[in-house]
C-alpha cells in the first residue's frame, strides 16, 4: 500500500519536474543569504547592454506579496515533504535514493553515499536539509526568473547593420554605406538588384514558419544571478564594449562602469590591482553585487486577486531621463537614447484557457468517440514537445480527458512558478530606415540614398552610424510564466501577411517604363535596360545610373514634341 502511494507520488513528482529537466541547467547559483531575508531574496539583478555603457537594473519582484523565489520554494518544499517519508525535516541516505536524476552531471552520479556527499553543503552530517535540497533543485531547474525575447520582426532578424559593417568595428562608415550595393550583392539570389527579406534573412528566421516552437531571441538584457549567467554577461560585455578594453583585451576600463553616476567610486574597490581596469575575475566579483542604476519593484498576483503593480524605487544614474509613470502597472523612461517601457501583467487567465482549449480539442481528435485517445489520436492534439507516455499516467494506452487535464494543470503550474520578463524591440531597424517606400525590399535607389537617409540618425555627426544612434525602443513585460502549450501571437500572423504581399507594378511613368522596370522598384537600372547603352545614358539626365519615372516621362514628351514638329 505504502509502496503504491510512493509510486504514485513519484509519478506526480516526475511529471511535475518533467519540464525542468529539459530546461537549461545553470551551475553554481548564487544563493540568497537566508530564507528569512525576504527583501534580499526578492532581488533579481540584470544588466542592460546599453549603447554607450552597461546599465544595472535591480528588480524587486514580489509574487502574491512575497518574494518571487518563495514561489519556487513552496514548490521545493512540497517536493521535499513528499520525499521526507519519516517527516523528520531531513532527507536520509535511504530517502535520497528516491531523488530523480535531473541531468546535472556532477550531482547525478555514484552511490547514494557519494551522491549525498556531493549534495551536502559543509559541514557534513550525512543528511540533506531543505536548504541543501533547495540548492540542488535550484541548480537543476534554473532560477525563478527568465528573460525571453519576443519574436523579432523580420527586418530586425536580417541584421543589416552587421552585414554592412564590413570591418566589424561596430559602426557603418560613409564609405561602407556607399559600398552597400557591392556588400549585399552576394545575397541577391534572384539577381534582380533588389534585396527582399527572404534573401537577406538567415534560414529558419521566418517568424511564421514554426509558430509552435518558442523562439529564443537575443536581447540586450542579461540576468545576473548564478555563476554561469555572470560569466555569460562578462563575455557579452567584452564583445560589446570593445572601446573600453585594455590593449590585451582582457580587462574593461573602470570608466565603462561609472559613467554619469554620482556614487561611481563604489566600483573602484573591485579594482584590486589598481590598474583602473577590471579583469574577468574582478568583474566577476563586482557583478555578484553591482551598484544598481535603477531599482524597480514588480508585484504580480498568483493565487491572490489584485492588480499587478510596477513601482520605481530609485534611480541612481544621470543617464535616466523622461521618467513617466503611465499607470500603476506601466512606467516609461529613457536610458541614454533607449526608450524603455516597463509593464507588469497578470497572466492568470491563460492557465484556464489552455486547459479548456485542450479539453475541447480532446473531443475533436477522439475520432472513434470511445472516450479516450490512442497514440495516433493524441498526435493530432499537437501538444508541443510532449510524449504520449508522459501524459498517459496509467500506462494503459488509453488517455482519458482526466489524465490530460491532470497533465496540463501540472505542466502549466510548473511554468507559472517563474517570473518571465519578455523583451520586445520596437525600435526601427536599419532596414526599416533605408526602406523608404515601405515595400519590405531595398532597391538600388534606396541603397544609393542610404547615406542621406541615415544622416539624421548620426547623432554625433562623425560620418558614421553606430547601433546606439539607431534609437532603440524596448518594451519589457513582467508576468508569470505562461503555459507554452498554446501560443498565439496575432502579431506574427499579421506580419506574415505583410511579407507575402505581392509587389505591384510601377504605376508611374510611361507604359514602356513600367514594363521595363522588371523588379518593380520604380526605377530602371542599367541591368534592366533592354536597348543600346547609349540610349540609357541619354535618358539618365541626372547621371545617377537609374532612369526615374520623371526622366522617362520627359523623354516621352520630347519625342511627342519632335513628332509634332
Amino acid at each position, binding site marked *: 500500500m505504502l509502496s503504491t502511494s510512493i509510486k504514485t507520488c513519484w509519478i506526480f513528482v516526475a511529471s511535475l519536474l518533467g519540464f525542468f529537466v529539459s530546461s537549461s541547467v545553470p551551475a553554481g547559483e548564487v544563493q540568497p543569504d537566508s530564507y528569512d531575508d525576504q527583501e534580499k531574496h526578492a532581488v533579481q539583478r540584470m544588466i542592460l547592454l546599453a549603447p554607450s555603457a552597461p546599465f544595472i537594473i535591480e528588480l524587486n519582484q514580489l509574487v502574491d506579496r512575497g518574494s518571487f523565489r518563495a514561489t519556487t520554494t513552496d514548490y521545493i518544499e512540497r517536493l521535499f515533504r513528499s520525499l521526507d517519508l519519516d517527516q523528520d525535516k531531513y532527507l536520509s541516505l535511504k530517502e535520497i535514493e528516491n531523488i530523480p536524476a535531473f541531468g546535472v552531471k556532477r550531482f547525478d552520479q555514484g552511490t547514494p553515499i557519494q551522491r549525498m556527499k556531493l549534495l551536502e553543503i559543509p559541514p557534513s552530517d550525512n543528511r540533506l536539509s531543505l536548504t541543501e535540497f533547495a540548492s540542488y533543485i535550484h541548480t537543476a531547474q534554473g532560477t525563478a526568473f527568465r528573460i525571453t525575447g519576443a519574436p523579432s520582426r523580420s527586418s530586425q532578424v536580417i541584421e543589416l547593420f552587421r552585414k554592412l559593417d564590413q570591418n566589424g568595428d561596430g559602426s557603418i562608415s560613409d564609405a561602407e554605406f556607399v559600398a552597400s550595393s557591392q556588400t549585399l550583392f552576394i545575397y541577391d539570389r534572384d539577381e534582380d538588384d533588389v534585396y527582399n527579406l527572404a534573401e537577406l534573412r538567415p*534560414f529558419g528566421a521566418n517568424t511564421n514558419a514554426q509558430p509552435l516552437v518558442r*523562439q529564443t531571441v537575443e536581447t540586450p538584457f542579461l540576468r545576473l544571478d548564478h555563476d554561469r549567467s555572470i560569466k555569460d554577461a562578462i563575455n557579452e560585455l567584452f564583445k560589446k564594449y570593445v572601446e573600453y578594453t585594455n590593449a590585451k583585451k582582457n580587462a574593461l576600463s573602470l570608466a565603462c562602469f561609472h559613467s554619469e553616476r554620482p556614487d561611481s567610486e563604489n566600483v573602484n574597490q573591485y579594482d584590486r590591482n589598481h590598474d583602473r581596469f577590471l579583469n574577468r575575475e574582478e568583474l566577476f566579483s563586482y557583478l555578484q553585487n553591482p551598484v544598481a542604476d535603477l531599482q524597480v519593484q514588480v508585484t504580480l498576483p498568483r493565487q491572490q486577486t489584485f492588480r499587478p503593480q510596477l513601482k520605481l524605487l530609485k534611480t541612481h544614474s544621470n543617464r535616466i531621463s523622461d521618467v513617466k509613470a503611465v499607470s500603476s502597472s506601466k512606467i516609461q523612461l529613457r536610458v541614454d537614447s533607449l526608450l524603455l517601457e516597463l509593464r507588469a501583467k497578470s497572466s492568470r487567465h491563460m492557465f484556464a484557457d489552455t486547459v479548456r482549449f485542450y479539453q475541447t480539442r480532446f473531443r475533436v481528435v477522439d475520432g472513434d468517440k470511445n472516450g479516450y485517445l490512442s497514440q495516433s489520436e493524441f498526435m493530432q492534439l499537437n501538444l508541443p514537445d510532449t510524449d504520449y507516455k508522459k501524459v498517459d499516467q496509467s500506462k494503459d494506452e488509453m488517455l482519458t480527458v482526466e489524465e490530460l487535464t491532470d497533465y496540463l494543470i501540472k505542466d502549466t503550474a510548473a511554468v507559472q512558478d517563474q517570473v518571465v520578463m519578455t523583451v520586445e524591440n520596437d525600435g526601427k531597424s536599419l532596414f526599416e530606415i533605408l526602406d523608404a517606400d515601405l515595400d519590405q525590399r531595398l532597391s538600388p535607389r534606396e541603397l544609393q540614398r542610404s547615406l542621406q537617409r541615415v544622416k539624421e540618425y548620426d547623432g554625433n555627426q562623425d560620418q558614421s552610424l553606430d547601433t546606439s544612434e539607431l534609437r532603440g525602443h524596448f518594451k519589457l513585460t513582467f508576468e508569470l510564466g505562461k503555459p507554452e502549450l498554446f501560443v498565439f501571437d496575432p502579431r506574427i500572423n499579421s506580419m506574415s501577411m505583410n511579407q507575402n504581399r505581392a509587389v505591384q507594378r510601377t504605376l508611374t511613368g*510611361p507604359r514602356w517604363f513600367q514594363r521595363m522596370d522588371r523588379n518593380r522598384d520604380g526605377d530602371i537600372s542599367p541591368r534592366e535596360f533592354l536597348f543600346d547603352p547609349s540610349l540609357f545614358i541619354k535618358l539618365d539626365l541626372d547621371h545617377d545610373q537609374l532612369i526615374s519615372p520623371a526622366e522617362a516621362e520627359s523623354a516621352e514628351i520630347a519625342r511627342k514634341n519632335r513628332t509634332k514638329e
Partner: protein
Amino acid sequence: MLSIPIHHHSQQFWSTSAKALVVLMLFSHWTLFNHSSSASEPKTDQTGKRLTHQIDLIIDQAKKREGIVSTHRSTDAEFMRRVSLDLTGKIPPVAELRFFLADQDQNKRKKLIDRLLDRPGFVVHFTNTWRAFLLPGATTDLQSRGQIPEFEAWLRSQLMNNTRYDDIVRQIIDAPLDANPNRETPGNSQGLTPRAYYLANQLKPENLAAGTSRAFLGVRIECAQCHDHPFDNWKQHQFWQYAAFFSNIDQPQQAAIGNTLTVREVAGKPQIKIPDTNRLVDAIFLDGNQPEWEKEQTTPRLRLSQWITADQNPYFAKATANRVWSLFFGRGLVDPVDDFSSANRASHPELLELLAIRFRKHNYDLKYLIREITKSETYQLSSQQTDSSQSRVEWYGKMPTRGLTAEQIFANLVQATGFFQQTTETNPLLSGPGTNSPQTEIFELFKSESENRLEPKATILQALSLMNGAFITNATSLEQSDVFTAIIDFPGLTDEEKIEAFFLSALSRFPTQAESKRLTVYIASAESDEARTHAFSDLFWALLNSSEFLLNH
C-alpha cells in the same frame, strides 16, 4: 513539334501559316546560325602548365587518334549563353549580353567566367544541381520534400563560402542527426545541418550505403545488395560491410506534427546482419581495410567520412572531377557518372587522372575545377556540326547540345519575358503539384529523373503547354507582358532594333542579317499598328518556342 501551332491570342487574326513561316525561318537558322562574330582570344595559355591547357592537349590528342575533326570556336554570343546557363542556370540579361558582345578585351571570356563564378546565381544554380544529385528522389517524395529547404540553405551557405568539397562531403556523412538546436534562433544561420541527407535516405544503412557510394565514390555497389555484383568485383558481403558504417543509427519513433524527429545513435562497434542470412558483418571500407575501433576512438560515420575524402582514396577525387566534367559536357569521362567499374572504362583515362590530381592539389576547390574546364578551348567549341565525325560526342569534336533542367527552363522564361517573381525562403519549384503557379506548372511539366542531358526528350504536353499555355500567352500580349510591351512601346526604335531586342531577350544573340531582313519585311507587311504589334507578338512567341531557346548549345 512546332508544326501545328495553336496560339490562342485575344486578337488573333494572323493565320497559323504566318507563324509557321516565322518558325521555319528560325529553324533554318538553327542549323546554320552563328557565323557572325569572331573569337579572338589566344588559343593557348602562356604558361602551358595550366590544367585548362592540358585538358585541350589530351582531348586534341584523342581526337587525332580517333580521326575526329573539330568544329570552329563558338561565337561570343553562343559562349555567353552557354556559360551563363552552365554557371548561373539561366540565360544572360540583355544589358550584360550587349556589354559583353561590345567588349574588345582579348580576355573577356576568362573575365566573364570569373565574374559569373562570383555571382549569387552561381550559388543558387549549383545548390540546385548538387541538391538534385544528392537527394535525387526528394522532390517527389512528400516526406523528404519538407527537408529540402534546410538542406538547400545549408548547401547555399557552403557554396557561398566556397567551402572545400571534401569538407562538404565530410559534413554530409557525419551530419548531426538531431533536430537543429539553433533553428529556433533567428539571426543565427550557423546551426544549419545537412541531416536531410539521412532523412531522405530514411536512415536505412542500405540506402545510405548505396547513396554515398554513388554520389561520392561513383560506384554502384547497391547492385551487390542481394547478390554479388553481376559485372564487377563487388561481393554481397562488401556492400553490407560498407553499410555497417551506418548501422549504429537508431530508427526513430514517429514524431507528432510540430514535434521534431529525434534520432539517436548508439555507441559501439558497428555491425550489421545481412538480411535473410545469419551472417553478422563488421564495418569494413571498400578497400578491405577495417578501422581499429578500440584504438581510434571515433564514430563510424566520422571515420567513413575521413576514409571517403582521404587523398589516398582511389575513387573520391576522380568521381567528383568526373561529375563536374559532366555538368559542362552532358556526359562524364566515365559515363554514367556513378558507374566506375572495370566494365565501364573512362573515354580519356589520362585526363580523368589529371583532373583528379589537380582537384586534390587545389584543396578540392570546385570553383578551380569549373574555372579550368570552362576556360578550355574544348568547352568553347561551337555546337554546330561541321563534320560527321563530330557526332561521336564522347570525343568532343563539338560542344554537344544539351537539354535544360526544369529550373533552367523556368529561369530562362523569367529572364526572357520579365515575369515578376519574388525570392522566397523555399524553392517554389518544390511546392508540389496543386500549387497554382507558373513555376510549379513548368516544373511538373519539365522535371526529369534522368541525369542524361544529351538526349533531351520533349513531350507533346511540354510543346503544347509552351505554345498555348497561359504563361507564354501572357508573355507575348501587350496587356500582360513586361519585356514584350517594353520593346513595343519604347519610343523611337526602328523595326530592326525591336527585332534585335527580341532576339537578344530570347535567344541571347543578334539576328543574322538574313533573319533581320526577312523579319523586317514580315513586320512591314502588316497593314495597321495593331497588326504590326501582333506580328511582333508572333515573332516573340516563335522565339520562345524554338529549340534554340529550349536547349543549351
